[in-house]
């Protein structure tokens, strides 16, 4: 209080005011107020000048980016064609709906609204919401493709209430023959978050844009992807489009043409039927891979449309591994299929074809007796091949040494990786002493030679290698497989065998099928074409566990068959491997029918139809049925698969070849050439029309 009083008294004289002092104060202070106002006015003017003039460029840009919405148009993907130009993978125009999770305000409600419009099942909705939870940033999540126009319109109308939902017209990848090309072609899918981080290109997160995810789709990504188009539109703040400003069309990706024969690929895949296995066919003259079917497979259409949880778990849990390409990544002991090739090695080492041994149901090597699968008596090279006598190979492999044999195995393509545009191939093992020392640090033993001489032991090969081996055996050329049609056909190096030697082995392999050999039922039902081949059976477990023919599926022997035809002038060569087929008897009928189809499609299909009837439909139909059954077991409801509408795509189906041949026949009928173009409809053209249906 004292302090207060003191201050008060100290300042008191200044507080003496009068009219004049107040007047002065008003003048002073109103000047201050005026100056303050002027100051703020100046600041505002300066600020405005700064924003509008100094920063003008930046704000003009922002204003433009507000006003103009640039949306990328996903490019149409290039087609993957078979050797005749028919599409193995094409695009189908459709209406689709995606959602961008980050822009959704209430994902659950939005999804519920979409489910109602589109008629999605609880199963679909669960899949989509799982995807939404996993999604990062602006990565679009596919909700549905293949909508009809009414659904598309219904969603478009409700867009203002459904933030984050992107309906659009687009193209979806379509694989006409589905599972038949699954492993070969692969599939496409939206870019993952990792892929976007690696290459932050806005096209990757454009709804509807898909990249190759596996096999050839991934391998040829750069060629297939094309160039995105762009559409500039003026939009309001709420996203309503006011007008189009400018549109740049997309550029479709380049087509990739394969050496694959589409109908043959489909036929082989379907002919494998219920078995788990693969079939490879090569053109001996060019090395063209005509088919490389691996079954059971997946439907790449489902993958490309965003595979469901249930369907994926069905594929993953299958003991027949439908997710593995068995042609390139299935490794099997080649078994007896290597015997003709081993004979070539013996020939090269100076063994004469006439040199023979006595098979007494086996052969003593060192101090152990090794069984043959039968007692063949006197065996020369030809008999060793067509009767598949093990003793002969125990003996001569011992005589020439296995290094020599292994050297030829490599020359013939076993244990080799081929220069093919594939994501990966397992090249297996051709055992030899140096390899064993490297791998196990133990010495090569006589029993190693014995085992390896009949394609067992450490020997591991993939079906493509077996097919290449067959082609090289058949021609004596170092046939190199080729998968792209636009790669130049190479001149193959010829092995130093005399024509007589090659003919000798060809004849012996022909006898396997057409003579007194092990695969009599493999004879082609054709008059003028003889197929040569060699059976093989690869043990999976020791005889003490299973006899390899019956019992649990996974203990049964693998069945193998290598072949070429026609035997005297080889044009096609190939291999069929059936996992756990219970012996070569599972493999060669398939090879027979595939080759029959190649030479005579009608006869081939005749053989396939009753089988498919018995199996319950084509591979595609069986896969669909299996999925429905699996889903039902898992307590989910799956919509029946919609029927395909675009008949144009059917030209790679096995049946397409038949129709094509018929058409060709009609075309070749003698008709008046000069008036062909302008002829009125006659009975002849009526015929053509009727038969084509």
């Amino acid at each position, binding site marked *: 209080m004292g302090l207060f009083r003191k201050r008060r008294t100290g300042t008191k004289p200044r*507080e*003496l*005011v*009068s*009219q*004049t*002092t*107040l*007047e002065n*104060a*008003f*003048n002073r*202070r*109103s000047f201050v*107020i*005026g100056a303050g*106002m*002027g100051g*703020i*006015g100046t*600041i*505002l*003017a300066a*600020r*405005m*000048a700064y*924003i*509008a*003039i100094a*920063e*003008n460029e*930046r*704000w*003009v840009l*922002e*204003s433009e980016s*507000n*006003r103009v919405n640039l949306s990328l148009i996903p490019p149409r993907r290039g087609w993957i064609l078979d050797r005749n130009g028919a599409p193995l993978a094409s695009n189908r125009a459709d209406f689709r709906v995606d959602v961008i999770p980050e822009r959704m305000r209430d994902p659950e409600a939005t999804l519920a609204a979409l489910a109602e419009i589109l008629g999605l099942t609880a199963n679909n909705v669960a899949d989509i919401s799982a995807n939404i939870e996993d999604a990062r940033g602006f990565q679009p999540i596919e909700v549905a493709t293949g909508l009809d126009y009414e659904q598309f319109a219904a969603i478009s109308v409700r867009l203002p209430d459904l933030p984050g939902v992107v309906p659009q017209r687009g193209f979806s990848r379509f694989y006409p023959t589905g599972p038949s090309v699954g492993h070969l072609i692969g599939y496409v899918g939206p870019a993952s978050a990792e892929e976007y981080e690696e290459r932050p290109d806005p096209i990757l997160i454009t709804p509807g844009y898909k990249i190759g995810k596996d096999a050839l789709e991934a391998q040829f990504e750069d060629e297939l992807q094309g160039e995105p188009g762009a559409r500039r539109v*003026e*939009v*309001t*703040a*709420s996203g309503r489009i*006011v007008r189009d400003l400018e549109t740049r069309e997309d550029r479709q990706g380049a087509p990739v043409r394969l050496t694959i024969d589409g109908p043959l690929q489909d036929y082989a895949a379907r002919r494998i039927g219920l078995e788990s296995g693969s079939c490879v066919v090569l053109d001996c003259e060019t090395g063209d891979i005509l088919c490389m079917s691996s079954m059971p497979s997946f439907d790449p259409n489902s993958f490309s449309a965003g595979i469901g949880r249930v369907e994926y778990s069905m594929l993953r849990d299958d003991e027949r591994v439908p997710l593995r390409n068995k042609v390139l990544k299935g490794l099997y002991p080649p078994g007896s299929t290597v015997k003709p090739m081993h004979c070539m090695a013996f020939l090269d080492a100076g063994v004469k074809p006439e040199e023979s041994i006595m098979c007494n149901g086996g052969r003593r090597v060192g101090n152990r007796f090794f069984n043959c699968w039968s007692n063949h008596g006197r065996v020369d090279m030809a008999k060793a091949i067509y009767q598949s006598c093990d003793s002969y190979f125990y003996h001569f492999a011992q005589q020439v040494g296995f290094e020599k044999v292994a050297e030829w195995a490599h020359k013939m393509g076993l244990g080799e990786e081929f220069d093919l545009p594939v994501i990966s191939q397992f090249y297996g093992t051709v055992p030899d002493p140096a390899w064993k020392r490297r791998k196990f640090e133990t010495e090569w033993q006589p029993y190693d030679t014995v085992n390896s001489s009949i394609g067992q032991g450490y020997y591991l090969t993939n079906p493509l290698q077996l097919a290449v081996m067959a082609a090289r055996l058949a021609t004596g050329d170092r046939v190199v497989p080729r998968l792209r049609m636009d790669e130049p056909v190479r001149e193959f190096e010829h092995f130093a065998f005399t024509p007589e030697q090659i003919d000798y082995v060809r004849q012996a392999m022909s006898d396997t099928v057409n003579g007194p050999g092990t695969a009599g039922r493999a004879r082609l039902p054709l008059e003028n074409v003889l197929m040569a081949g060699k059976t093989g059976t690869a043990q999976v477990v020791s005889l003490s566990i299973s006899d390899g023919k019956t019992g649990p599926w996974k203990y049964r022997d693998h069945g193998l068959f290598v072949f070429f035809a026609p035997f005297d002038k080889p044009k096609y060569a190939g291999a069929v491997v059936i996992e756990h087929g219970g012996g070569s008897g599972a493999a060669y009928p398939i090879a027979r029918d595939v080759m029959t189809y190649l030479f005579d499609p009608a006869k081939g299909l005749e053989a396939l139809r009753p089988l498919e009837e018995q199996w319950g439909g084509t591979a595609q139909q069986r896969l669909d049925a299996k999925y429905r059954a699996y889903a039902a077991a898992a307590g989910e409801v799956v919509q029946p698969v919609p029927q395909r509408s675009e008949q144009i795509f059917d030209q790679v189906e096995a049946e397409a070849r038949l129709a094509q041949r018929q058409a060709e026949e009609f075309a070749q009928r003698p008709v008046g050439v000069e008036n062909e173009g302008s002829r009125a409809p006659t009975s002849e053209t009526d015929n053509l029309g009727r038969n084509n249906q």
Partner: protein
Amino acid sequence: MSGIVPAPVARQPWMMLFPLFGLIIFGALVLTSAAAGNFDAYAKSHLLRFGIFFVMAVVISRFGKDLVELLTYPAYIVILLMLIAVEIVGQVGGGSQRWLEAGPIRIQPSELMKPAAVMAVAHYYGHLPVGMVPSWRALMPAAGIILTPIAFVLLQPDLGTSLAIAFGGFVVMFLAGLPLRWFIGAGIAGLAMAPVAFFFGLQDYQQKRVLTFLDPENDPLGDGYQITQSKIAIGSGGLFGKGFNEGSQSHLNYLPEPHTDFVFATMAEEWGFAGGLFVLGCFGIILTWGLRVARAANDRFSKLVAAGMTATIFFYVAINLLMVMGFAPVVGIPLPFISHGGSSMMTNMICIGVLMMIHRWNLKQPRTGLIAS
């Protein structure tokens, strides 16, 4: 002036009226564009309202000093009662309300309170014995005159109007000659209290606005969106703008409230920096004229009223422009004479009318010397 112009016409404060008409007409143009080229939507009623309120301003300007001094307190009390009535009606009706309805007319008492509070404080200090001015005892009634309405307006809640009343009252008290150290002390105390006021005095949405103002990038799609869009509109206008009716920010709805709070951004986008200078210039002339009227006034009441009215108009202009340029948080204060809206037009025209009135008093009774009544 020369003999051609009749005296009653020449007597009018043309120095203020020309820029005022300029702003109104310019405002009508901008509002036409804000409605995407539709004159009827905003611009028509803008001009109509101006016409009505201009007549009102002229009527006000005819009032005599004695009458005004007589009516000041009663008017203040009536408006205060209306303010309380708004609060009661709001409480009874449930939910907050800012206006009273009398037939077709909606009266917003808080708007009327701005000039009324200024007049009341000016009246109080204008008639206070000179020696009492710097005393604490004399401060209390003045503080009461200002704080009572502020309290009721804050209850509505309407921060912008509260601040406007406070600003008007503050300017009058400052000019009345109160000791400077009180203002300095109040300023320091205010700074110290700001955090407390922020956390306990402001509503959630007001807190958010302040935070957004401090860091607009923090919330680019929410509150910061408005400021950012406003800056985009002003910035993209450049020197001469995109041209009449060509503004994409306003036409494509990016700019929020393109006809009220952010009308300056709408204008700047289409007329550029040049348009901005025109608006600033007009306001500068009007406000300078207002201060000059205050200085030329004969008595303290007139001086303080004129200065207070000028300050009230200035407050609108400054806060609105600071807001649209990103220097102040988003408070719903329109730009005088340009924004579409009846209540702000009314308040500002009352201020103009009062200024014209004092201008008339000044002309009628020219300042004679240092000693005046």
